[in-house]
């Protein structure tokens, strides 16, 4: 079914659960649609005027539809309480402790994704909008001791494999939406708010960051890249970035 | 709901406002004005009753 629906590869630990829900929902949809479809086609053929010249005043006496509605309601309750609500709670409530995770800030702007790594010290330096210019799109205050080793990239997010990543998402200008199709992650970047998401990448390789919310004329090209690499490769990459500071 | 009913409703809320305003004035240390506000609340109650008497024969609907 998953292949049939054409979902993207599952790149994170929780991706399969989301896909499972989507698949179950589509089973429900297919079952209902095909069931109704068969009934509908049968009725149209059997009760066409040529075949059935006089209509029956009472029509159907069956209570099938009530049972069907109860079944639909029960399935919906199961999907809701059994899958969707716990899954969502897992997404928004059960963040891993920050010491065990890789913490990154992503700041969206028209039309790019700015990524802010804390650097060696693990502390994010101050950002000040008054310092924003083309060389420093994040406005990192390099006078802040915490900021000296901070790494900033544009449209390139590197993350280590199999380690939970916590990403704080915010925006400099308008609403964007941080979407990682392969990771089954989507979160609006809302100006004035910083909202975290978390996931554990389980699939090494390159994929994309898409913007899912209309953000102006360059919305279609607001594409970033994400690279999932082993811890060693990731550390090497970080060192390389730090060296070029 | 007729204008009569709505008027009574409106006057009742005005009474509450007058009382609330009086409390607010007490908080702001303006007791004289507060008393004035309470008095106007009472005045509105008296008016409301006389209004109801006057329009005894008009429907509430």
């Amino acid at each position, binding site marked *: 079914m998953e292949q049939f629906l054409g979902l993207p590869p599952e790149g994170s630990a929780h991706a399969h659960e989301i896909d499972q829900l989507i698949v179950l929902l589509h089973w429900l949809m297919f079952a209902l649609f095909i069931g109704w479809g068969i009934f509908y086609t049968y009725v149209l053929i059997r009760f066409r005027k040529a075949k059935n010249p006089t209509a029956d005043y009472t029509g159907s006496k069956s209570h099938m539809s009530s049972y069907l509605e109860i079944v639909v309601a029960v399935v919906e309750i199961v999907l809701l309480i059994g899958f969707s609500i716990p899954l969502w709670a897992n997404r928004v409530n059960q963040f891993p402790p920050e010491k065990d995770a890789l913490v990154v800030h992503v700041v969206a702007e028209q039309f790019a994704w700015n990524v802010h790594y804390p650097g060696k010290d693990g502390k994010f330096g101050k950002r000040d909008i008054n310092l924003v210019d083309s060389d420093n799109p994040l406005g990192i205050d390099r006078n802040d001791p915490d900021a000296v080793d901070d790494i900033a990239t544009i449209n390139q997010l590197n993350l280590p494999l199999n380690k939970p990543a916590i990403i704080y998402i915010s925006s400099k200008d308008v609403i964007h939406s941080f979407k990682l199709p392969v990771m089954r992650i989507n979160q609006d970047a809302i100006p004035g708010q910083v909202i975290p998401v978390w996931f554990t990448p389980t699939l090494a390789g390159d994929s994309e960051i898409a913007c899912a919310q209309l953000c102006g004329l360059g919305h279609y090209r607001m594409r970033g890249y994400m690279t999932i690499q082993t811890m060693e490769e990731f550390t090497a990459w970080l060192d390389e970035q730090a060296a070029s500071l | 709901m007729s204008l009569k009913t709505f*008027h009574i409703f*409106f006057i009742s809320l005005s009474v509450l406002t007058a009382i609330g305003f009086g409390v607010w004035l007490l908080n702001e240390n303006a007791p004289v004005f507060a008393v004035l506000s309470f008095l106007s609340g009472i005045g509105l109650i008296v008016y409301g009753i006389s209004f109801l008497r006057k329009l005894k024969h008009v429907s509430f609907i």
Partner: protein
Amino acid sequence: MEIPYTIETREDTGVNNAKLGIWLFLASEVMLFGALFTTYILLRIGSADDWSQLNDILNVPLATLNTVVLISSSVTMVMSWASLMMKDFKKYKLYMGLTILCSFGFLIIKYFEYSAKFEHHLYPSTNTFLAIYFTMTALHGLHVIGGIIVNTYFWGPGSKMWNTQPERFTNRIEIAGLYWHFVDLVWIFLFPVLYLL
């Protein structure tokens, strides 16, 4: 064919068309101002500033005066309707005239309030409290102006209907009165919410 129930009430619903219509309209107005009050609450909760300090710049005595003016105008409005019920057209004219005067009085006082703010360079863009203050009072002011237009029409040219269809005219005044009471009611809420709290 005449439209039925323009004057007389329909037996099973107990109202005439206009009265049902105005109440539906007022229901939508409740939703309009309700949305603005909700906005006020959300912005106040989310604000970094203390709004109970911010509203100190507002002129409470003038607003109190305005509250008194509007409550009085409601009383005169209802009196003008009651006069028509007692078939006293002259008194109707007097009370309706007073209602309109009160409404103008309200707007004039509001004008002084606004211009005092502008003189001190306080604009809607100054802060979010003033933004919602100006938006809500201005929208309320527009409703007052609407009421003045309607009431003036019924005081002047519209009152000719009294000679031909007195019952229908009385109805119309009741409808206008319901609208006017709603406008006043909004102020009764605006006054504490904006000026006092």
